[in-house]
């Protein structure tokens, strides 16, 4: 009896495991049905936000609005967090799944790399259709420069969630107190730094251990002093950085900050987000960063601080005196999603004027023409509109993924922390770039 019972139990266990490993006929049928259906009753959205983050709450409110508008569509929003791309890699092995994402929301630097792999649908045609709550074509509702900066080979794959640019953040109240005005030229910027330093305030806050932000400095100066063609050619190893003196000049500008002691003490050991905290505490005068700072630091910004932004001042000998970076976190529609029509309808609401207040309340700049403004970023639109040329963030160099991470990143950290000179930086950059592409 015992033996029979043991046998029975073993067979049941084995059957259970096999059943678990396989997929049930009903679920397979369900996924098969879904692939055949168009104009479906489902929509799956994956976002890089974590549940509970302010922007996640806003995204949920857009889902609620969409559900009111399209009550027959069952929306599933998944808050994947920042490692969404690796989760998407895994999901691509299961394209037939009923919960395969129709929309991915992520920073457009990573989205661009994915679009180049052909996983997203071009949206140019959809952008010519009417907007959700404005009497114009959907594409015309967005800030033109922003849409232009996000195109890949002239094709638009992304719907912006916000609009970021890059520049110096400062406390207007602190500037007034010290009799400082917003610098328009390089010499004026240096004068501002000297005044801040003389008053016992670190002129610039920086997390010197963070390669990603450190390389941004060199890129921003290089974008102004040379052409984007040269910058990208050098990044791809097609020309030497030493062959264009503008690169050395850009490195010298960066080195000026460490040579003059403009960063806070011990900058090399500062780990993100310490520099931002230092800035909002008023212990540093400037922060050179993306326009997400007001959002990111909202909870730590004291009420008396009047956070404002100004662009990198004009540099002598610039090729493009006001080259600016403009980018966005954005949404893209997947090629393998089964609910593309629903996805487009959702994105129209996602980017409608009616939901912009929710974005700007979180201190995110609106991507729409005539959208509400964020007081801290009231200069953002003029920075963008006065630009003499534009690119995405990091000069779009992120697309050279591991060169960006393994070559430019570590060397920029050494340069900005004063461990190597500008000349050594350029020489080493050429050596390491050549070795990388070899």
């Amino acid at each position: 009896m015992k033996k029979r019972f043991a046998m029975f139990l073993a067979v049941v266990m084995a059957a259970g495991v096999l059943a678990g490993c396989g997929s049930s006929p009903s679920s397979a049928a369900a996924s098969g049905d879904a692939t055949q259906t168009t104009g479906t009753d489902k929509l799956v959205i994956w976002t890089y936000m974590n549940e509970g983050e302010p922007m996640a709450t806003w995204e949920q409110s857009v889902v609620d609005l969409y559900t009111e508008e399209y009550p027959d569509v069952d929306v599933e929003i998944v808050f994947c967090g920042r490692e969404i791309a690796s989760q998407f890699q895994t999901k691509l092995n299961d394209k037939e799944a009923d919960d395969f994402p129709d929309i991915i929301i992520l920073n457009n630097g990573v989205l661009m790399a994915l679009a180049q792999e052909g996983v997203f649908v071009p949206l140019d045609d959809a952008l010519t259709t009417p907007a959700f709550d404005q009497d114009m074509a959907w594409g015309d509702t967005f800030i033109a420069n922003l849409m232009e900066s996000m195109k890949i080979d002239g094709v638009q794959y992304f719907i912006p969630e916000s609009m970021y640019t890059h520049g110096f953040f400062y406390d207007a109240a602190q500037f007034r107190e010290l009799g400082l005005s917003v610098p328009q030229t390089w010499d004026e910027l240096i004068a501002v730094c000297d005044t801040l330093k003389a008053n016992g305030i670190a002129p610039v806050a920086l997390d010197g251990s963070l390669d990603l932000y450190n390389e941004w400095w060199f890129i921003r100066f290089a974008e102004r002093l040379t052409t984007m063609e040269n910058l990208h050619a050098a990044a791809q190893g097609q020309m030497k950085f030493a062959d264009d003196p503008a690169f050395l000049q850009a490195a010298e500008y960066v080195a000026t900050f460490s040579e003059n002691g403009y960063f806070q003490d011990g900058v090399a050991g500062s780990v993100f987000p310490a520099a931002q905290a230092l800035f909002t505490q008023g212990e540093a005068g400037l922060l050179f960063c993306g326009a997400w700072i007001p959002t990111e630091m909202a909870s730590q910004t004291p009420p008396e601080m009047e956070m404002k932004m100004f662009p990198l001042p004009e540099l002598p000998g610039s090729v493009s005196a006001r080259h600016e970076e403009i980018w966005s976190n954005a949404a893209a529609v997947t090629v393998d999603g089964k609910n593309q029509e629903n996805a487009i309808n959702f994105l129209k609401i996602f980017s409608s004027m009616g939901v912009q207040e929710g974005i700007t309340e979180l201190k995110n700049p609106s991507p729409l023409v005539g959208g509400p403004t964020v007081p801290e970023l009231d200069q953002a639109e003029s920075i963008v509109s006065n630009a003499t040329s534009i690119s995405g963030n990091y000069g779009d160099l992120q697309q050279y993924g591991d060169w960006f991470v393994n070559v430019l990143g570590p060397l920029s950290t050494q340069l900005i922390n004063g461990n190597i000179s500008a000349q050594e930086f350029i020489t080493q950059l050429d050596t390491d770039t050549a070795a990388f592409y070899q």
Partner: protein
Amino acid sequence: MRKVKPWIVAVFLFPGMLMYVYFFLIPAVQSFYYTLTEWNGFKDEKIFVGLENFQSLLTDKTFQQALGNTMLFLILGGVLVFGIALLFTYLITRPGFRGRKFFSNFFYFPNMISQAALAVMWVFFFNPEFGLLNMILNAVGLGEWCIPWLGSRLSGMICIIAVSCISFVGFYLTLLLSGCDKIPDTYREAASIDGATNLVCFFRITLPLLRDVLVISVSLWIINAIKYFELIWAMFKGKSTMLNTIGTYMFTMAFGVDVPVFKLGYASAIAVVMFLMVAVLVGGFRRIFDREDFQY
């Protein structure tokens, strides 16, 4: 006792074996295959590149740096963890010592806290401007010792090793104490009667009899150190290249996070190197130090 028929045992083992094969063996074999390809995970297409990924590792400066950091963590961290754990074992197992339970729990406590939470705390602790460490040094008149602790590869790695030790000591202390529990008191009592001090008893009796536990503990340390990831990732998110270990570098190459680096074939090659390191070091260590079970 009735002997259970082998086929019944086999049937009961089958579900477990099936899961092991499905969830571990097949992915592991697949990983070996991926090392021979260039693949980003977004397309089905994998380009066969032979041993190119391994060749690239030989000239990859970031990988070599990460490997150096991992070895430093393994060796220096090992010396510190086991040095401190053995010291506490000696102090706690002395005859007449009270509070053994309290101290073993006390030292084990950091091991129970999430590494991510610890990372946030340590990042601020080491901050050069407002970190507690430099504040304390300034307060006791050692202001000239204040440095940007996480600002260079060596000082950064030493800080990481130091804080990791605080987490790990409790775990290895618990293993060693459980080993001590198995040693009969009679050996030490006999030695004491013969005039041996506590220290002599520890080195001549306890330590040799702990050898089996030590071999297992060191093997575990080697495995944990080579694949160490959580704390460093939580502190730097792979964005401070000089403080990468091979675990964090592998993740950065596979999944990029903020920067689109999706080199799954290359990352698999790094994973295979990690596997070989564990196999060679643990295998070699056990071959040298393993012995027949000592019965007492």
